[in-house]
């Protein structure tokens, strides 16, 4: 269980995503006031001032300053901290280790191609970036290269053909970062395409090589050494250099890219140090010796030669200029039909064409992504053969719109398949805001748990295909609590708990009232219009327990805004949990994410909350959980490095959160359901076990001859298979 998404699509990982046909969600990004950032300011002014001149001036000044500094130092003024640039002031011409620029302003050969701004950035952060001699690499490292892992693609795969898919909206940019870049199309540029240093193996707990041909974890458990594949190059022919990984930090932390999330993600607090040893060797030091440190630091390089001028014009300049990629598919400007489609073309001479783990993947010659705005229309086009594959997770699609008896399936033109996968499910749940009455009372919350008839939903709306989620951390292997179960629907138990909370009498409409005459009425808010029917059923069933649910179904952005401001009573939502070794508790359950007051200062001596605390908006603690014991355990859990202890604490936390009663787990689906035309072929097992999405690992291939055959047979009305092509792949089914 690892997090490939963490690096190649980090934004998604933190955001609440849209599921089931709504993949274009954007989390509200905390926008920084652009005007405030000085670099932005200077770049604007830069248009009027000669920038070259300004740089020379700055360098001269810096040198002057450094000389003066060194002089003072020599005079014994030891109290002054030594800035790195001081080394530039020494007369020594040779490059010492750890030095970026020597006295003459000449850069180290490994970064000689870098622009002044970039060099300056490195020099300013000598503790975070360094250059060492190869002799500094520890000799006793255990290098791995993934050779003991097995390939997950099929040697039968054939190259060629066009893969037709659809997107619901035309991408607003071809940038992969910055405003509007987080659209669904980005997956075709990054997730399904670009390689990072090392990739987590989707069938095992190991890794397989990406851009790095071998890697090793240092003795401290925090530093990972990588040796780049000598063949690795970008689609424009330039080789991947170790210094590109240094540049990644310059790029990601730049204000010009206007991506605060990335600015923060690539921050100094997580990536302690990046060291270059030669053109192809580097090491990255993570802030903690986590068991999965390799994937945490497995970055994607940013091609420095492409972004040679990174300035305030970034957004405009790169809006429709796709970045050279290390992956097989390129989006060339001439293949973009604005507003209609984007065609990605496979590079014939892709550098990893013959590499193990990559050679049988990425098979189609072209990926043709068409804009079809309406989901139902896309489905009709799929039935006509205009799209090769379609997700059939929705019940009505699977059972009604394309039943097993559908002529296309019976005649063997089209396959319906169920593939059982093993990934942490998106956390569909009702999150109760424990701050708002009447749900600030624990008994009322637990009563609400028992009043939610999810069993009926699973049975009737999802026809028994989905299963109930049990904890807030399902799908993390041993880290998930083995025995904890979601509270069942029970009118008796619900009314019993509601009575404890003071709601014991039924009003004229059957809704419970308390002594003050207040009705037990709760507002449930959601941004998922397509789950309206689920909520409507829950509402009707909750009436039996004397609870009124008022439904508020909002636009997605409006819903997140309301929830972010913590103005909801109950929010029905889902987080996309990405493949990771252990669950996260701090973001959704630590009191520091509920109130502005930090640490234990918000609790009275007996552990209860102090009055008049300030609610903290825009965090993922949608339940406003603030329990001192949970806080303390999370504080221990986060820095823990031993997997056994992590497991134990994760179980404890799951139980505590269950007892606190703020999270009503809804459902999960342990499979992928897909329909595809039979000219699309798959490996024997269909896909690796951690497949989240049918396009993710690109193991399929297109058989052009089969396509002609099927289309011809369809025209003549003849079947191409003896029985209906309905398949189930149960190899990875969990019981």
């Amino acid at each position, binding site marked *: 269980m690892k997090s490939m998404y963490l690096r190649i699509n980090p934004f998604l990982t933190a955001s609440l995503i849209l599921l089931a046909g709504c993949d274009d969600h954007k989390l509200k990004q905390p926008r920084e006031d652009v005007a405030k950032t000085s670099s932005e300011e200077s770049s604007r002014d830069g248009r009027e001032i000669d920038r070259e001149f300004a740089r020379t001036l700055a360098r001269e000044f810096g040198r002057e300053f450094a000389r003066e500094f060194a002089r003072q130092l020599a005079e014994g003024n030891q109290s002054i901290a030594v800035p790195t640039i001081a080394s530039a002031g020494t007369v020594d011409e040779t490059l010492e280790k750890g030095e970026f620029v020597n006295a003459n302003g000449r850069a180290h050969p490994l970064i000689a191609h870098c622009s002044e701004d970039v060099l300056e950035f490195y020099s300013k952060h000598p503790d975070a970036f360094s250059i060492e001699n190869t002799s500094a690499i520890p000799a006793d490292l255990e290098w791995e290269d993934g050779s003991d892992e097995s390939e997950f693609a099929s040697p039968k795969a054939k190259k060629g053909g066009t893969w037709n898919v659809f997107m619901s909206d035309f991408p607003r940019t071809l940038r992969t970062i910055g405003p509007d870049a987080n659209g669904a199309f980005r997956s075709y540029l990054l997730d399904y395409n670009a390689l990072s240093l090392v990739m987590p193996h989707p069938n095992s707990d190991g890794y397989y090589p990406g851009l790095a041909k071998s890697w090793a974890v240092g003795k401290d458990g925090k530093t990972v050494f990588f040796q780049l594949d000598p063949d690795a190059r970008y689609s424009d022919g330039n080789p991947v250099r170790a210094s590109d990984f240094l540049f990644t930090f310059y790029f990601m932390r730049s204000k010009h890219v206007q991506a605060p999330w990335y600015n923060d993600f690539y921050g100094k607090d997580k990536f302690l140090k990046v060291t270059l040893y030669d053109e192809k060797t580097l090491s990255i030091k993570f802030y903690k010796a986590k068991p999965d440190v390799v994937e945490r630091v497995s970055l994607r390089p940013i091609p420095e030669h492409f972004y040679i001028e990174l300035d305030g014009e970034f957004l405009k300049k790169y809006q429709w200029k796709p970045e050279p990629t290390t992956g097989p598919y390129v989006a060339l400007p001439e293949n973009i039909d604005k507003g209609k489609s984007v065609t990605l073309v496979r590079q014939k001479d892709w550098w990893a064409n013959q590499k193990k783990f990559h050679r049988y993947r990425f098979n189609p010659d072209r990926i043709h992504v068409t804009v079809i705005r309406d989901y139902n229309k896309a489905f009709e086009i799929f039935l006509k053969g205009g799209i090769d594959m379609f997700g059939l997770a929705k019940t009505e699609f699977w059972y*009604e719109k394309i039943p097993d008896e559908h002529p296309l399936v019976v005649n063997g033109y089209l396959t319906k398949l169920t593939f059982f996968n093993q990934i942490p499910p998106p956390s569909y749940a009702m999150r109760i805001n424990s701050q708002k009455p009447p749900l600030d009372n624990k008994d009322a919350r637990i009563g609400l748990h028992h009043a939610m008839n999810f069993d009926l939903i699973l049975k009737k709306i999802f026809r028994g295909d989905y299963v109930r989620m049990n904890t807030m951390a399902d799908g993390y292997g041993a880290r998930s609590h083995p025995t904890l179960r979601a509270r069942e629907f029970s*009118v008796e138990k619900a009314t019993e708990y509601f009575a404890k909370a003071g709601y014991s009498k039924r009003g004229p409409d*059957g809704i419970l009232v308390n002594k003050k005459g207040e009705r037990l009425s709760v*507002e449930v808010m959601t941004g998922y219009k397509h789950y*309206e029917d689920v909520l409507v059923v829950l509402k009707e069933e909750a009436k*039996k327990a004397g609870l009124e649910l008022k439904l*508020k*179904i*909002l636009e997605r952005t409006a819903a997140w805004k309301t929830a972010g401001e913590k103005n909801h009573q109950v929010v029905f939502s889902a987080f996309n949990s990405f493949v990771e070794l252990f669950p996260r508790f701090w973001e959704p359950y630590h009191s520091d994410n509920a109130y502005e007051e930090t640490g234990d200062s918000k609790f009275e001596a007996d552990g209860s909350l102090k009055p008049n605390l300030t609610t903290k908006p825009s965090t993922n603690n949608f339940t406003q959980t603030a329990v001192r014991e949970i806080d303390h355990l999370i504080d221990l859990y986060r820095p823990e490095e031993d997997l056994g202890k992590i497991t134990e604490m994760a179980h404890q936390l799951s139980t505590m959160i269950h007892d606190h009663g703020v999270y009503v787990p809804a459902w999960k689906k342990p499979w992928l359901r897909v329909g595809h035309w039979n000219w699309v072929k798959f490996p024997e097992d269909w896909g690796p076990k951690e497949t989240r999405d049918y396009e993710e690992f690109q193991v399929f291939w297109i058989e052009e001859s089969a396509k002609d055959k099927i289309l011809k047979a369809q025209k003549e009305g003849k079947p191409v298979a003896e029985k209906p092509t309905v398949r189930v792949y149960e190899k990875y089914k969990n019981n």
Partner: protein
Amino acid sequence: MIRKPSLNPITRKKLQRFRSIKRGYWSFLLLFFLFGFSLLGELFVNKRALLVWHEGELFFPTYGSQIAGKTFGLDYEYETNYRELKRKFQEDDSSHWVLMPPVPYDPFEMDYAKEDSTGFSPPSLADGHFCGTDKTERDVLARLLYGFRIAMIFSFGYLILIYIIAICAGCLMGYFGGKTDILGLRLVEIWANVPFLYMVIILVSVMPGWWGIGWQVASLLFIMVLFSWTGMTYYVRAAVYKEKARDYVAAARVLGASPFRVIFRHLLPNVISTLVTFAPFTVAAAISSITALDFLGYGLPAPTPSWGELLKQGVSNLRIAPWIVISTVSALVLTLTLVTFVGEAVREAFDPKKFSTYE
């Protein structure tokens, strides 16, 4: 002195003429009947029983508070499921009985009684689902009927509010003329250019959630009125302009009548006949806009029964549940046709060419 309300002879003549236009008149009666029927909908389409005879006592559950299952010897405290109660009484062969309405379902309740029911049951006489069920096994007929009631009440409210605003604004501009007119008309023009649909979408999404459904519906009505009253003002203004030049207005003014009195006592009755002809079309417009808004998902809050919501379900499941679209579209076409027929008849009956006398 109280005057006996009597219609003025011209109006009486107009009404007579309306009655003589058979198509419009019968449409009016049918529409009136349908609306009346929908107001009494609880007696015909309801999950609550009309009558229950239990242990020597007669219950009328239709209106009033809900009756807990325990009252009838069932083992639960929530509202009695009368269909089950009926079955139970029949099975027990007891002297107790239940009289259910012809369609024993309400628009909110999911009929998951059958093991294999998973939504979209086709129309069935035996189950009492005459128009089938929707995705969550709610009765389509029940939703149609209650949706009709809400749409009609909504559109009458819309009509009344629009007329009040338009008459006030139009009369003010028309009667005072001059700067009032120029300024007022400019304001109306500006206001009319605010895109209606966007405003509704924006305002609906910021409505506070703690409002009850009644408030939400009312506020939707206000929002719609707020952005669509302008069209009618032009007609009122023009009509008032025309009328105020007449001698009777001058006479009233000479007698010292205040502008308020002149407008509402003298001008309005003469202007109103122009406006009446627009009324049925305004109703039709209101029904279509509320349906359209619901279809887009910006209308009445779920799970309020509404035609737009039914249409949306029907369109996205056209192949598997054609009965939803068929019944909803038929109902919509029928209603709008009736309203249009009424409108045409009213227009013809109130045609000024037939009755106006110019001095």
